[in-house]
Every structure is written in C-alpha cells, then in structure tokens.
C-alpha cells in the first residue's frame, strides 16, 4: 500500500518536473522530489521511502537531465548531483523514520504508563489477595487481548490454576502447568513459542527460561512470570495471546513484568496488613486472658479462703462450737460455694459464647415461663425481696434459645440482687410494641453512673461505684452477647426516682405459630370423657409453622 502511494507521488512529481523543466532550475526540481520523500517517509515509513528515493533519482535523470529520456549521464557534475541527491533522500528517510519510531515508542510508553497507573489505582482500592488478583487478571486480559491464568499454591504447596473463566483452566495443559511450577520454583520467567494451531493442537516448540537476555528474534506466544513480592512469591501469572497471529515481544514482556510486580507488591502489602491484624488480635486476646487470670485468681480465692476457713473450723473445733455456730459456718460454706459456682458458670458461658458461632437452638418460648424459671433459680438469694411482675396479656411466643435466654434473666436478677439493698423491690415488665417485645428488669438501687450505660456491658468491667464487689464483671457481657445472638438489643439507664432499668428489645422476626385453640374451652370435662382423643386431634392447628430455626 505504502509502496504504491509512494510510486504514485513520485510519478506526479515527475510529471510536474517535466512540464516545468524549461522554467525551473534543476536544484528546484530536486527540492520537489525531496519534499515528496519527506512526506512519504513520514507517512509510510522506511520501505516506501527508500523506494521513492531511488525512483526519484532515476526519474530525475531520465526526464530532467539532458539528454532527456535516457539514463545516460553527461559529465561528472551530474554524477555528483545524483549521488548527493540519493544520499540526502536516504538520510531523510532514515531520520524521519527514526523520529517516527520514537514518536510511536513515546505513544506506547504513554499508553503503558496510563495502563500501569490505572492498574495501581484499582489495586490500591482493592482489599484482599483474591480480589487483587482478579483486578490484575482483568487489566492484563484487556490490555493484551490475552488469556490470563494465575497459579496459586494450595495448602500443600501444589500449584492450582485460578481464573475467572473456568474454561480457560480446563484448557490449561499439563505442559503449561509444568512451566508454571518451574517458574514458581526458580522465580524466573519463561516464554514459550507454540506451533500455529492449524492442526488444532498446540505443541510447544520452544520454552525458554528468561533469566538470560531476550533474543530479539523471539516472538513468544505465552509468558509465565512469577508474582514476586519483596519476600514472598505468591504464584505464577500466565499470559497467552488469544489471537495466534499476534505474539509477545520483549517490551511486552517487560511491561507485563511491571504489572505483575505491581500486583505482587500489593498482595504483599495486603498479607502484611492481615498479619498485623492477626497480631493485634493476638495481643488483645492476651490482654483479655491476663484480665481474666487476675480476675479468676482474685475472685475465686476469696470464697475459697472462706470455705477453707469455715470447714477447717468445723473440723477442728467440733467439740467447742455451739450448734448455732456450726450452722452459721455451714451456711457460709454453702453461700460461698454457690457464689463460686455462679462465677464458674459465667466464665464457661462466656468462653462458649466467644469460641465461635454458638449452637443456638431457637424454639417458641413463653416470656412468662422463661422469667419464671430464672426467678426459680434465684429463689434462695431473693429471700423476702419483693418481685413485681407485670406482663402484657397479648405477648406473642418468641423464637429463642430457652437455656441461653434464661441465663440472661438469671444474670440480670443476680445483678440486681448483688448491687441493691435487700429490702428494695425488683420489678419486671414486658410489653408488646409493633414489631418487638420490650422486657424490662428494674431495681431501686443506686442506679447507673452517667457515662457507664454502655461500658457496664463490657467484659471485666466493674462500675467505679462497685469496685469492691466480687465477680468477674461477665454477667452483663454475657447478657449482651446472648441478646445480640437473638437479634435483640439490651440497654441500661438510671431510673426516675432512683435505681436502674435494664431493658431488652426483642424482635418479633417471624410470626409465631397460630395457637388459637379450636378446642371448646367451656366443654365440661366429664362430657369430654370419651372425646379426649378427638379433642386432641381437633387442636391440630391448621396453619402449622416450623418451630426452631
């Protein structure tokens, strides 16, 4: 194409020079030719330009230099003119095409730096190693119109191919896998050349390790590069051209290497961040353990000292102790062991709640019943303390874990008993609001200090005003964790007229099963004598729902 246009341009120039040869000086005619050569060189590159140079010298000789229409040269001066003209024409050709190449290089460099910038930018916004890889794969695939596969080591260290396109992995042959492994082990890139897949089967003709210089003649079909960070090799990147006619050059290789390095560095950064976070968690865990240990050693020692003292006194002074004294000592032992048992229970509960996803078993529960069984467990500690309970009549059954929720109320009640004077009442109420049930446990103690409304639910936290009290400070933290597991919220605040209110907002997330009784409530028992099985059957509820979760 370029050659034809070059030929045409020179022909036009020659026609022009034939018509103007009696008016124009030879040197001016040469200028016209040179101008044409500059144009051809800049538009069509080296080949057409060389052709045009030679053509123009010949045409100039043939048409413009007397004797006309012959290539015969008269005189040495003409020879010099031709030589200089040819020399200048070729010089122009060379210089122009150099400028062209440089411009093209500059353009490519600009494109690539833009591409690199785009990749870096997207990588910097991406979190997680897998996501980083996906970004890199996407960019390289689009830039080169290539198939991109990443090989990552699994736990055992074997490389596994990953790509967004599973078909691409399927096609990954054993040989490519071997290349990937070699690259991963040696950390040196490999270029492969395959035969044209006319036969439908790709065979690897050549596979070169790129630790030595890239041979200028090498046109690679596939590249395998290590994803090499500063310290770690994350995997291997395979780039294979989709179009078999296109190949990868040395500069492509360098560019892909830059992209791969950039990705690897980002991955390294991500893994360092992960490690940092893990280390941070470990430190926090350590601090928690220390707090726990100091709590345990202090809070278990006190009741233990009492138990040891009281029981040894019972043994050693059995002859001198009055019966009432013996009873008193036994009472102390009982109370302190109950206290210890409560501490241990909370400790275990917290550990269980924290040891990962708790096995929560939700079934339909009656709020009244749960509160009742929690109250039964603190019956002795309650003594004569007044407990006022006021529950709405229309409370729905709630889906909750019976044992865990009972622990919530148990802890709240124990908390009230521990921190409020024995003669003050405890009130419990429950109300239904639109989509939730609010259950409140209220006391008439000192209330909650301002600013401590949230922190009292933190593990090992003990209110400033109760610094001397025993306990791990786990009870309310357990309540919070359990209520959260049920999708509810627990909060605490001081109460008008003194005391505190602990309130639990419990979502009614599913419609409780229909429990309307089809049974005739007024049916007298005596007549229902023989009808009992029927009655049982008729109480089947039409709209049965799944219980539990």
């Amino acid at each position: 194409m370029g050659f034809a246009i070059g030929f045409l341009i020179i022909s036009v120039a020659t026609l022009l020079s034939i018509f103007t040869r009696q008016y124009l000086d030879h040197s001016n005619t040469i200028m016209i030719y040179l101008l044409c050569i500059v144009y051809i060189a800049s538009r069509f590159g080296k080949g057409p330009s060389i052709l045009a140079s030679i053509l123009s010298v010949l045409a100039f000789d043939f048409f413009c230099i007397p004797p006309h229409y012959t290539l015969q040269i008269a005189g040495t001066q003409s020879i010099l003119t031709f030589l200089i003209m040819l020399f200048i024409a070729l010089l122009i050709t060379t210089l122009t095409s150099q400028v062209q190449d440089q411009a093209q290089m500059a353009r490519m460099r600009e494109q690539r730096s833009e591409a690199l910038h785009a990749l870096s930018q997207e990588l910097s916004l991406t979190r997680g190693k897998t996501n980083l890889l996906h970004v890199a794969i996407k960019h390289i695939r689009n830039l080169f119109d290539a198939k991109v596969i990443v090989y990552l080591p699994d736990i055992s260290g074997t490389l596994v191919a990953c790509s967004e396109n599973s078909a691409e992995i399927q096609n990954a042959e054993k040989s490519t896998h071997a290349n990937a492994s070699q690259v991963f082990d040696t950390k040196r890139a490999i270029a492969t050349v395959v035969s044209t897949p006319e036969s439908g089967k790709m065979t690897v003709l050549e596979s070169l390790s790129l630790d030595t210089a890239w041979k200028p003649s090498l046109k690679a079909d596939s590249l395998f590069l290590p994803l090499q960070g500063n310290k770690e090799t994350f995997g291997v990147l395979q780039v294979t051209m989709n179009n078999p006619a296109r190949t990868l050059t040395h500069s492509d290789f360098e560019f892909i290497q830059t992209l791969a390095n950039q990705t690897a560095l980002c991955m390294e950064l991500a893994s360092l961040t992960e490690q940092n976070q893990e280390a941070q968690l470990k430190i926090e865990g350590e601090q928690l353990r220390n707090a726990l240990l100091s709590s345990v050693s202090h809070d278990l020692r006190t009741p233990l000292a009492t138990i040891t003292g009281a029981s040894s006194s019972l043994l050693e002074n059995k002859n001198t102790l009055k019966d009432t004294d013996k009873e008193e000592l036994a009472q102390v032992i009982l109370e302190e062991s109950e206290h210890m048992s409560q501490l241990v229970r909370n400790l275990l509960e917290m550990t269980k709640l924290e040891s990962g996803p708790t096995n929560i078993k939700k079934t339909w529960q009656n709020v009244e019943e749960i509160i009742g069984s929690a109250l039964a467990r603190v019956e002795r500690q309650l003594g004569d303390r007044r407990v006022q309970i006021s529950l709405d009549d229309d409370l729905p059954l709630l889906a909750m874990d019976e044992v865990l929720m009972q622990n919530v109320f148990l802890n709240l009640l124990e908390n009230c008993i521990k921190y409020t004077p024995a003669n003050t009442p405890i009130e419990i109420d429950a109300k239904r609001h639109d989509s939730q049930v609010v259950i409140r446990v209220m006391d008439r103690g000192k209330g909650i200090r301002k600013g401590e409304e949230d922190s009292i639910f933190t593990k090992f936290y003990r209110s400033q005003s109760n610094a001397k009290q025993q306990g791990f400070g786990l009870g309310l933290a357990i309540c919070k964790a359990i209520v959260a597991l049920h999708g509810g919220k627990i909060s605490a605040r001081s109460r008008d007229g003194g005391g505190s209110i602990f309130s639990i907002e419990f979502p009614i997330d599913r419609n409780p099963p229909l429990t309307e009784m089809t049974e005739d409530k007024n049916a007298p028992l005596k007549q229902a004598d023989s009808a009992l099985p029927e009655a049982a059957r008729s109480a089947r509820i039409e709209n049965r729902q799944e219980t539990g979760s």
Partner: protein
Amino acid sequence: MTSNQAKILLVEDEQQIRRYLRVTLGTNGYKLIEAERGEEGLAIAGTEKPDLVILDLGLPDMDGLDFAKRLREWTSTPILVLSARGQEEDKISALDAGADDYLTKPFGTGELLARIRVALRHADRGSNDSTDSSFSFGNISVDLAKRIITKAGEEVHLTPIEYKLFVILVKHAGKVITQRQLLREVWGQGYSEENHYLRVYMGQIRHKLEDDPARPKYIITEPGVGYRLRPDHTEG
C-alpha cells in the same frame, strides 16, 4: 419401701462426690453400693439388684446413655442421672433412653433426697400398678376418678387438652417429663417437635392453678428439658 433400707447403687468416678453421697445417704438410712466404672456398675446391678441407680453422665469408660440402655434391657430399676448444667441434650437423651430423672451438679442434699424419694415411690407404685385416684398439693386437689380439680375449694375448669397434660404431670408427680414425652402422649407421635403447643397450654394451666403464674410453685419448667410437677413446694 420408703422405710429407708432401700439399696442404692452409685456409679460415679469422682471420689469426692462418692464420699459426700456415702455419708449423706448413709445418714438418711439408705444402703449405698458404689461403682467407679460403667461395666463394674452394670455387673453389680446384676448381682445386688439395687432399688435405685444414681448414674453420673460423665463416666470414663462408658457413655451414660449406653449404661441406661443396657440396664433397661433387663430391669426397670429407676435411674437418677447426675449431670452438669449445659448438658441439656445429654439429659434428654438419657431420659429418652430410660432414665427416670436427673439432677444438675452442683446440687443440694434436700434436692437429692427429694428426687430419690420420688423415684423410689414411683417404682414402688409401678409394681403395684395402681395410682391413687385422689391427690392434693398446696390448696389444689385432684380427683382423677371424678375428673374434678379444685383450687381452694373452688372447682377449676380445664379444657380436655389441659386436663390431659395436667394428669400426666400428676401421675408422675415430682418427676421430670420431657417436652417430647408430653407432646407424644397428648398430641401424638407427629407432634414431638411442636413445642409451642406446650408453651401455650402450660401457660394456661398455670394461669388457672398457680397463685402467681410468673412464679409457679407447682408446675415447674426444667429449661431445655421439660416440666415437673412439684407437689411439695418446700422440697426444692
């Protein structure tokens, strides 16, 4: 039978608990035989024919569940299971496997003796195959023959299902009945997982019979396990 020369087999690997029970049960007039391991316990049960077995669920050589099953193969001697809190599933499966009742560690002596008395009484009654037709606790009296329940002299009307549930509790007074047992007996096999029926009916029974339904004295919930009628309020 409650003349207290009852023979109790204790299968428990914790030495201190054995020591404590040896003294406590001895003082209360029971004859205690001890076994450390499950196999040993089963062998002794065969030769000694105890009136009651107290079984720890955490035996080193045998699942408490297997023990209950194997014992049940040839005797209906009542089994009282000892277990830690938080083992609700284990308790239920032990009860399903034939255990009669359970106690959660740590437990008090009063509670232990009450459970033993109830278990022995039921075993005794089982052999006679007769149930007293009238029964009373607190201010409530039940006449099973006439199907009349009165509270403080006033007749209380229970619906047929409420009555059926209540009668099961009364017949097993003092003993725990699992949710599944109640559901099966009242509603049938297919209903053993529909525990919301129980929640509703038990709530209604409490509202009819208890003075304060939120703090029941007689119809006690055993969280995660089932229900128990506690006829003598002072026992707990």
